[in-house]
Structure formats: structure tokens, C-alpha cells
């Protein structure tokens, strides 16, 4: 029996403002994979992520989720398969941490249904896992930038779809929090959840992702196993700047040359 692809793109072309982000992309995500998307600012990493989430139509091609076309899937059903951690989140109105995390249960509830104590337990567990346990009644807008990022992640953990699309998950976080968050996501990956994450830090991508998709701009892409694809040459081409690898025990660390 072959394992079903969680996400598959067929001849996917994504454009933003007339510029190609990727062209004829064939990209598949199977359970337990962790993909890093790398590219320079403005190359369209976020646009690609939103397209994969079904939030904007592609210029051409098709996206399948568990072999069913995403475009034809009811939005609520898609939200039970794919979750998105946006680059930033809004909270113009006061709302407690628990209320905010519980939003993640929305796709699972019927129209007039209220969150059950089971839903609350899921949300509280997610808050505890990101280190925001024990302050459920605190108001979200009193949190720091980094804590808000953790809260957004807790909302995604509460949603807990089989595929996480993460737009710079380590953004706004201190070094130790970056590692804690990525460790947490790696634990989810080992439990079978798949990740596609946009990252700015090559070395975090090398450390945490086992697959990589490089966006060169003008629609050109390369993809594959992290260890085989990532090297000085490709990264230098990707970032339009010489990148050198420094040996650190059993792995390489890439730094600007």
C-alpha cells in the first residue's frame, strides 16, 4: 500500500504582481516530512504558502489534499487538513488567551455548537506546551511580541491539522524560544504531522527540516533532501552573496562569506 500524499501540487505556477514565484512546480508532502522554504525577501515565500493553504488561487496548475482538489474542498474541511501560522496576527479587541487558542477548534464545531470541556482541555494543553499555561484569563494584547507568537502557535496546535504551514515560526522569538518552538514542532513531526515552514535562518532550516524547497525568483526552484541539496554553491546563488560552510562537530554552519 502506498502512503497517500498529504499535499501534492501538479504543474503549479504561482504569480504575484506579474512575477513568477514558481513555475510548473511538482511538490509533494508526505506524513512526517518537514519542509523548509528558503529564498530572499520578496521572492514570494509567503505567497506560495498562502497558495498551498488554498487562500489564493494559483496562476496555473492544481493543488491536491489527500488526492482531492483543494479548490473544490469546502473551506471548513480544508481547515481540518491544513493549518496556517501567519506572519503576524491581529487582536484589535480584548480577548483572553484561552478564548484566542479556542479559535483553533472552529473548523471542528457545528454552526451552533459551543466549545465543550474537551475543546477547552485541548486549548489549555496547547497553551501549556508553548509555555503559556496557567494564565488562561490573561488578555492577549497584554502579551509581548514573542509571547503573541507563541499564542498564535498555541492556536495552531489547538487546530492540530495533519499539515502545518508556518510563516517564519521563529519570528519575534529569543534564541532559546526559537529552539523551544522548533523542538516542539519537531516532536509534532515525529508524531506524524507534516510541516512546511518559511525560514529566514538557513542554519535553523538545516537543523530542523529534512526537506528543502529553494525559490530562486523568476519561477526557478530546486527541491529535495536537505543534506543533498544544501551546499555553498546553491546558497550563494539563492542569496546573491557568497555563502561558506564552517564545520561544527558533525554538521555544517553556513555563514555569509
Amino acid at each position, binding site marked *: 500500500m502506498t502512503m497517500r500524499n498529504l499535499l501534492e501540487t501538479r504543474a503549479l505556477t504561482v504569480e504575484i504582481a506579474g512575477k513568477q514565484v514558481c513555475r510548473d512546480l511538482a511538490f509533494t508532502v508526505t506524513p512526517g516530512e518537514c519542509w523548509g522554504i528558503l529564498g530572499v525577501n520578496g521572492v514570494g515565500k509567503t505567497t506560495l504558502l498562502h497558495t498551498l493553504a488554498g487562500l489564493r488561487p494559483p496562476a496555473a496548475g492544481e493543488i491536491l489534499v489527500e488526492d482531492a482538489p483543494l479548490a473544490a474542498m469546502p*473551506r471548513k*474541511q*480544508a481547515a481540518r487538513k*491544513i493549518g496556517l501560522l501567519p506572519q503576524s496576527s491581529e487582536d484589535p*479587541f*480584548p480577548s483572553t488567551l484561552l478564548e484566542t487558542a479556542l479559535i483553533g477548534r*472552529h473548523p471542528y464545531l457545528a454552526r*451552533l455548537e459551543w466549545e465543550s470541556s474537551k475543546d*477547552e482541555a485541548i486549548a489549555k494543553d496547547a497553551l501549556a506546551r508553548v509555555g503559556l499555561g496557567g494564565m488562561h484569563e490573561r488578555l492577549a494584547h497584554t502579551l509581548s511580541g514573542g509571547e503573541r507568537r507563541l499564542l498564535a502557535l498555541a492556536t495552531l496546535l489547538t487546530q492540530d491539522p495533519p499539515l502545518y504551514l508556518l510563516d517564519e515560526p521563529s519570528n519575534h522569538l529569543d534564541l532559546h524560544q526559537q529552539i523551544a518552538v522548533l523542538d516542539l514542532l519537531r516532536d509534532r513531526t515525529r508524531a506524524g504531522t507534516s510541516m512546511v515552514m518559511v525560514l529566514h535562518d538557513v542554519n535553523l532550516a538545516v537543523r530542523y527540516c529534512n526537506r528543502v524547497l529553494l525559490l530562486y525568483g523568476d519561477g526557478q526552484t530546486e527541491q529535495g533532501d536537505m543534506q543533498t541539496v544544501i551546499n555553498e554553491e546553491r546558497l550563494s546563488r539563492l542569496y546573491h552573496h557568497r555563502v561558506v560552510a564552517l564545520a561544527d562537530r558533525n554538521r555544517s554552519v553556513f555563514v555569509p562569506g
Partner: protein
Amino acid sequence: MFARARNALIVLLLLALGAWYLALALGSVPLDAGGLWQALFGAQSGLERDIVLRLRLPRGVAGFATGALLATAGALMQVLLRNPLADPYVLGISGGAAVGALGVLWLGWGGAWIEAAAFAGAMLSMALVFGLARGKGDWTPTRLLLTGVIVAAGWGALITFILAMAPETKLRGMLFWLMGDLSATATPWPAVAVALVGLAAVMPFARDFNVLARGELSAASLGVDIPFLRRLIYVTASLFTAAAVTTAGSVGFVGLIVPHLLRLAGIGDMRALLPGAAIAGGTLVLLADTIARTVIAPQQLPVGVITAFIGVPVFLYLLRRR
């Protein structure tokens, strides 16, 4: 979640009952509890019964419905625009209604013409903003807000023009309409019907509003149908506002302040906030109108003055305490 919302609504309902008691009992013929009971449910007819059933009750219903409509419209607009400063009037609907009503007052027509013209003006404004904001591109909150604010400014200029040109004998009536006044309301029932039907239409989507309040991107990724929800909110909030200003003129402040009062009291969930705003908004206008018609009786004040007099200090107090 559910228990908290239910308890909050029970408290608000008790406050509303208290306000209803005052609204029906106070006035030029004050009634005690027994007298009010007799007037409402007693067998014999009389002056007291007429005063309560023919004057105070319809006026109370009109005030309560107006407040309920404005407060829920405000809560909806704030979610649509994701802007805490939004109120039912921000997109120019009351401006359109005012131009209609003032135009008719200027011509010297009265009664139902004023209400018909106000409603027509509100609908025209709603269609105008909706059409212009959509344009060719996307329908973003910022674009909608800017379009609405500019259209409202246009109506404002027309209102000033009418006020400047109108004969002095008609100015008082016009000013009362602009400040919001319940003494000239013909019938409260259309407003009640709009409030009940509208709330029944939006309540099934209240949890979607909670999600939408956190931004369209998050909401879309959680399975919310954004284009549908935008239209639902825009049309409902506009109809609510139109029905309210048609009934009572542009009563200020209720639509902005009541949703925030409830949020400050910890009711942020739209499933509790919408019915809560209906009850609290209704209560506020009912109380304000009771004061407006009794405090310097026999003279009457426009109810909008009193809503601001009550609302401003209460709001500032809660804001400081939090």
C-alpha cells in the same frame, strides 16, 4: 464558555427589567408598583392605563429597539472593519438618512414622509458606499472605511447646507432629529421586526465573527467564508442602522460605547456580545429617554444628549478601572 455567556445575559436582562419599570412608572403621572401592575394587567380602563399602554409603552419599545439596533450594528461594524473606533454611523448611513429627513422637514412635509425619506437616504448611502468601495479591486476594510468616511463627509456638507438655508422656524425640529429624539416616532414595530429578524440571521454566524475579529488571513485559514461574512455583516449592520435612525434620528454614542462596555465587562465572545449589546443598548436608550422626558418636564430633551451624558462618564470609569 457557554455558562459565562449565559450568566452575563441574565444580569443584563435583570438590568433591562429595572429600566422598563422606571420607563413605565415615571412621568407626569407617576405610578407605584401596584399602580403600574393595575395599569398594565388590570381590568378597568382609565387615564393611567391609557398613559402606560398608549404613550409610555410604545415610546419605550421604540427606544429599546433603537438602542438594540445601534449597539448590535456597532458591534458588527467593529468586527467588519476590525477597528474599535467604528460605530454604526462611520460609513455614512446616518448621514444619508439625515439628508433625507432634513430635506423633507425643509419642505414642510411631516409624519411618515420623514421616516420614508430617512430610510431611503440610508439605503442610498449603503448602496453608494458598497458600490464605490468594491470598485475593481479587493474589498479591504481600509478601503471600505475610507469610502464610508468620505461619503459621510459629503452627507455632512449637505446637512450643513440644509441647516444654513432652512428657515429658523424649522431649525429646532431639524436639530432634534439630528440629535436623536423619540417624541415624534410614529410606530416602533418596524424597528422591532428588523432587530429580531436581523439578530436571528446573524447569530448562527457569531462564532465566525469571533474568528474574523482576529484578521481575515487567520479566519480564512480556519475555514471562514470571508466574502460571504463581509456582505452579511455589511448588509445587516446597515439595515439595523437605517431602521434605528428612521425610528429615532441619529442617537449618538450608543453604537460605539455599548460593545466596548460589554468587552470591558469581559464579554468579548460575539455569541454573548451580540445579544448582550441588544439588551444593554436597549436598556441604555430606554433609561436615557426616561430621563430625557422627565428631568426638566414638561420640557423634553433629545434622547441623544442623555445617552452621551450617561455613557461618557461610565465608559471613562470602566476604561480607567481596567
